[in-house]
């Protein structure tokens, strides 16, 4: 019995991957919420997207979702790339305008 539990812990199953993804997600959230630098925030977003992708791939491996999971993962990667491109372009623009990329400095509009 104990051994089985031990084994089930040892044997990387769906939950193992999901837990990794959950942790990665929370790290991403942490980065997004706390880093002042826009690029750091964007990196945090990448972490979140990756964590979602881990979910998808894990589901495709362990559930009936099968290959579809991978398929969707693929699209997510593409999306992430597109988003990153645009985001970085915007960041560059911001840097040119504000001479800073600290998010908390970019707040002329509020209230």
């Amino acid at each position: 019995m104990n051994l089985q539990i031990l084994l089930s812990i040892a044997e990387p199953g769906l939950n193992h991957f999901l837990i990794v993804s959950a942790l990665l997600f929370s790290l991403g959230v942490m980065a997004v919420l706390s880093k002042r630098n826009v690029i750091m925030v964007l990196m945090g977003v990448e972490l979140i997207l990756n964590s979602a992708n881990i979910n998808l791939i894990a589901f495709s491996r362990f559930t009936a979702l099968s290959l579809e999971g991978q398929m969707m993962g693929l699209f997510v990667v593409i999306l992430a790339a597109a988003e990153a491109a645009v985001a970085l372009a915007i960041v560059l623009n911001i840097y040119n305008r504000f001479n800073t990329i600290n998010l908390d400095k970019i707040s002329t509009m509020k209230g």
Partner: protein
Amino acid sequence: MFTQASLFILLLPLLGFLILILFGKRLPRQGDWLGTGFLGITLLLSLWLLIVKISSHSTEVFSSGFTWALIGDYSFTLGIMIDNLTVVMLVVVTLVSTLVHLFSIAYMKDDVRYSRYYAYLGLFSFSMLGIVLTSNLLLMYIFWELVGISSYLLIGHWYEKKSASDAANKAFIVNRIGDFGMFIGIMILFASFATFSFEGIFGALEAGELPFGSTGWLTAAGILIFCGAVGKSAQFPLHVWLPDAMEGPTPVSALIHAATMVAAGVYLVARVFPMLTADALLLIAYIGAITALIAATIAITQNDIKKVLAYSTVSQLGYMIMALGVGAWTAGFMHLVTHAAFKAGLFLGAGSVIYAMHTMLHKRHDHTTDAQDIRNMGGLRSKMPYTYVTFLIFTLAISGIPLTSGFLSKDEILAGTLAFSTLNGHWILPMIAFLVAGLTAFYMFRLLILTFHGKPADETGHQQIEESPFVMTLPLMILAALSLFFFYSFNPIGASSGWFWQALERPLSVVPEIVQPAAYPIFYQAVSSVHTLAMVLSVVIALTGIAIAVLMYHRKKLDPAAAAQKAGFLYTGSLNKWYFDEFYSKVFVGGVMAITRILRWFDEKVVDGIVNATAPIARGISRGSGWVDHNIVDGLVNATAAGASQAGGLLSRIQSGKVQTYLVYILFGMLLLGIFFI
């Protein structure tokens, strides 16, 4: 025929009013002849009505009416009714009114609003005739108010004087207070019987119906209707307006405040007498007695000739009311009639005196001396013989000296009160009545002596005084004649044998027996038994009063000043009219004004403020108070607005402009949503 004639009588003065108000200024002589002429016609018609009615239709009642409004199942009928009471009153009103019209031709001749004055007199006459002729309470109330408004207009005739417009306001508002009661009384009756007509109400009561099923409400209704009389007839505690009303022209005082309008209250009580319960009547009697006493005590110390007469009027009205209250219905009403003649005469006499004084002072360019103060007169007897003689007759009449009309009626009243006390034990009523009789004789002779006898206050001025013109003395003479006994009864010491007494019998009470006043036969018996006593007593007391006055002011045997000293607070109290005005202005006027101010404050600060509520608070709190100020001025002031925008401010502060903070919010928001709803 009767109804047509009386309608004609009613409407003729109205027509006069309309013509004069619209075209008065364009008529020759500003139309005084029109008003006087119309009234003269009504007088003749009334006299004819009186004679025909009393002589050949004495017991009949003529009435006619029309539906004024039809609401649901109720029809509101207005109509007129002619019985003996009506015809007598018609003559009184038209007579006095005609004489006053006549008198005014000279008295008011240079007035700026001469035609307006006549117009208002016409309006007044119309309203007063309406009261007299009406067959129901609603119309009575309508004319009641119209009388009030025409009296308002006449008192305020010289409205440039603040005192005049104040007096007019006071008269109307105090009357409204009385009318308020009357209106409620009418509503009680209408709510119970669904009719306003006297006939209908009395009929229902006779059939045993009661307002809201209780005699208590019946008493209340009676008293409330009596409230109207309290206002109009200047009874305690609403008597305060009448003396002030002397601000109006003197002929007006004669017409309205001596003979007719103030008598309307008495007339009203006489009209509704059948439905008054014993309790109501007792209250009425006491109100009358108190009024008579208070006014008489005030009158003895006044120095303004019109004020003395005004208080005397109040006092005499108290008499009448008291008489009705004790059940001496005929006596009370008779006193109304006799009093109308001699009091109108007194006022017109006073008017004649004032006119003479005024003319004299005007000639001397004296604008400081008061033309109405008896201390400035004296010795006028020689200069104004007609006025003096007539004034003497009136004074004798009001004092109740035999051979005058006043004696006839007053004697019956005194007998009635005495009889009442023997029946019920309310001995205080006859005591007051006799005391007041003495006081009346005293102050009237004081007035007469100070005005016409003795040395003139100002010798040089005295020389220039002239008798008033004939249009002024003629009415005095007519009224003096009417103050003699034979017009009412050929027996100089007993009214009950005269036509008047015969024609006007006390009506039967229609209220349930347990609350009925003493029945007429019982009462009559009691009166007969005390009649002689009362007569003797009254003459003795009157003569005593006269004697004291003569001793004090003519022979100077007694020093009025010393007497005043001795009387102490009684004197100062009397001089200051027992401080009624002061009390009212402090308590009621002040109270109302205070409520008014409080409510205004309440309205602007609290009611509006609840809505505007947080505006000032918000101003204090707000970080950007400039903003709030600005917007308060600009219009977003409203309460909710300030509160809401305060909330909006808080919310917009959350909007920090920092995108990561927003992200924190949304995640927290999500978390909270989750926690909250799971």
